């Protein structure tokens, strides 16, 4: 069996589950990319993927039960009843005292969910907490982490430079983004989606050219906090590598040429175009990152 180092399960059962998760939209961008690559490389997985898609499509086309007007009216009438005496009105109709334990169970389930979302109201039951998001997050994190360790293990050096605090912060942000459940908050290869999203979040909309034809695909964006201020971050992908591009709005309007500020095992380049101060960071080699910076600057003009 081919051994992959993309952090996904290598057993057939595990990878099948990941394909289901991909079809169900449950994967973060990094894991989805990894699964898509596996599918592209393996006809058996591609067939499985096609089967799942076809099945999901067929199930979603099944006729759904009609909500008749009479039925809807009956349910709406329940809502009209006084909230203090719903059972007294309804119980003679249903006529089953044994419905009471069910009632308590039903309402209790609702309250447990409510407690889960509002911890201040009541202590969530340990059971709900245990089966909350923990398992999946841990799984997603382990997938991304393994991918990072596999692709950049030799460069995985602890970052201990204090020379430039902003650079250090940005390196930390980039590293954290690689470890997080998703390196991007808005997934889109369309700059017309990413820019308005950033604009709506923080009122800043940096140039976001898609450089896919140059081999640097825009895959999304997120908001970072640098020096206490929210700043837009664009995420590009080049082969196996993610590039984070921080664009900090500039007041002074100074224009500076790209400067190497690499540290901590990451390549990092900093420059300014008068409107924004840019930081590009990646675990790619410097020449490749320089290539990205040159293409970005050319396209962003």
């Amino acid at each position, binding site marked *: 069996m081919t051994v992959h180092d993309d952090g996904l399960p290598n057993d057939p*059962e595990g990878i099948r*589950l990941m394909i*289901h*998760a991909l079809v*169900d939209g*449950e994967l973060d961008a990094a894991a989805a990319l990894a699964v898509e690559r596996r599918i592209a490389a393996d006809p058996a997985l591609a*067939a*499985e993927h096609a*089967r799942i*898609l*076809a*099945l*999901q*499509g*067929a*199930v*979603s*086309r*099944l*006729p*759904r*039960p009609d*909500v008749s007007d009479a*039925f*809807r009216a*009956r*349910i*709406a009438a*329940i*809502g*009209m*009843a*006084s*909230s203090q005496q*719903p*059972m007294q009105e*309804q119980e003679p109709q*249903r006529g*089953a005292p*044994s419905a009471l*334990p*069910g*009632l308590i*169970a*039903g*309402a209790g*389930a*609702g*309250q447990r*969910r*409510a407690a*889960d*979302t*509002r911890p201040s109201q009541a202590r969530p039951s340990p059971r709900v907490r245990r*089966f*909350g*998001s923990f*398992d*999946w997050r841990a*799984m997603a994190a382990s997938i991304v982490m393994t991918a990072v360790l596999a692709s950049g293990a030799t460069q995985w050096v602890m970052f201990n430079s204090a020379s430039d605090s902003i650079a250090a912060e940005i390196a930390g942000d980039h590293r954290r983004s690689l470890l997080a459940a998703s390196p991007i908050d808005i997934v889109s290869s369309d700059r017309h989606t990413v820019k308005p999203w950033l604009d709506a979040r923080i009122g800043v909309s940096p140039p976001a050219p898609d450089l896919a034809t140059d081999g640097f695909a825009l895959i999304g964006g997120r908001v970072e906090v640098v020096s206490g201020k929210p700043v837009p971050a664009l995420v590009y992908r080049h082969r196996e590598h993610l590039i984070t591009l921080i664009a900090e709005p500039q007041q002074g309007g100074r224009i500076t040429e790209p400067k190497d500020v690499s540290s901590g095992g990451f390549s990092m380049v900093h420059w300014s175009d008068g409107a924004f101060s840019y930081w590009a960071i990646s675990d790619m080699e410097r020449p490749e990152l320089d290539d990205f910076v040159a293409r970005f600057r050319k396209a962003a003009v």
Partner: protein
Amino acid sequence: MSDRALAERFNEVVLPHLGDALALARWLTGNAADAEDVVQDACIKAHAGIAGYAGGNPRAWLLTIVRNTAYTWMSRNRPRGMMAVGDLGDLDEMAAAHGASLPDEDGPEASLIAKSDTAALEAAIAALPQPFRETLVLRDINGLSYRDISVMLAVPIGTVMSRLARARGLLASELGRAP
């Protein structure tokens, strides 16, 4: 909270999801008439518990009540047909057995699945073992996320994933067998 506010919340939280509630109840009980009874019971319970709803996914909240109500209803109305729910040890064995009988490579062509007719697909879903059917319906018909389903069924997400994969695998091989 005032009665009026509670009534409004009921209208906002429950009424938009009646179609989903009926679909779930229909697949759990097996027929549309029983589904209406179950959903009506569930809505009475939802109404009684509406004060406890505090945000989150309203569809998942209502469907949790529908599911509980459906099992209560079935245990009352057809005790013999009721299969044991919640015996996870048995389910895992069942899952393993089904997994073993499903070689990955031999799945049918996707085009064959896409062409399958409604009746065949409905019969195949109805024939699924209950834990698999329930998971498939919650995901592919009700559109809940893995996380919502895991909270509702009180099982780990990994179990949701494996049940869903088994359910789809069984359906695919069933549909692939059609003439």
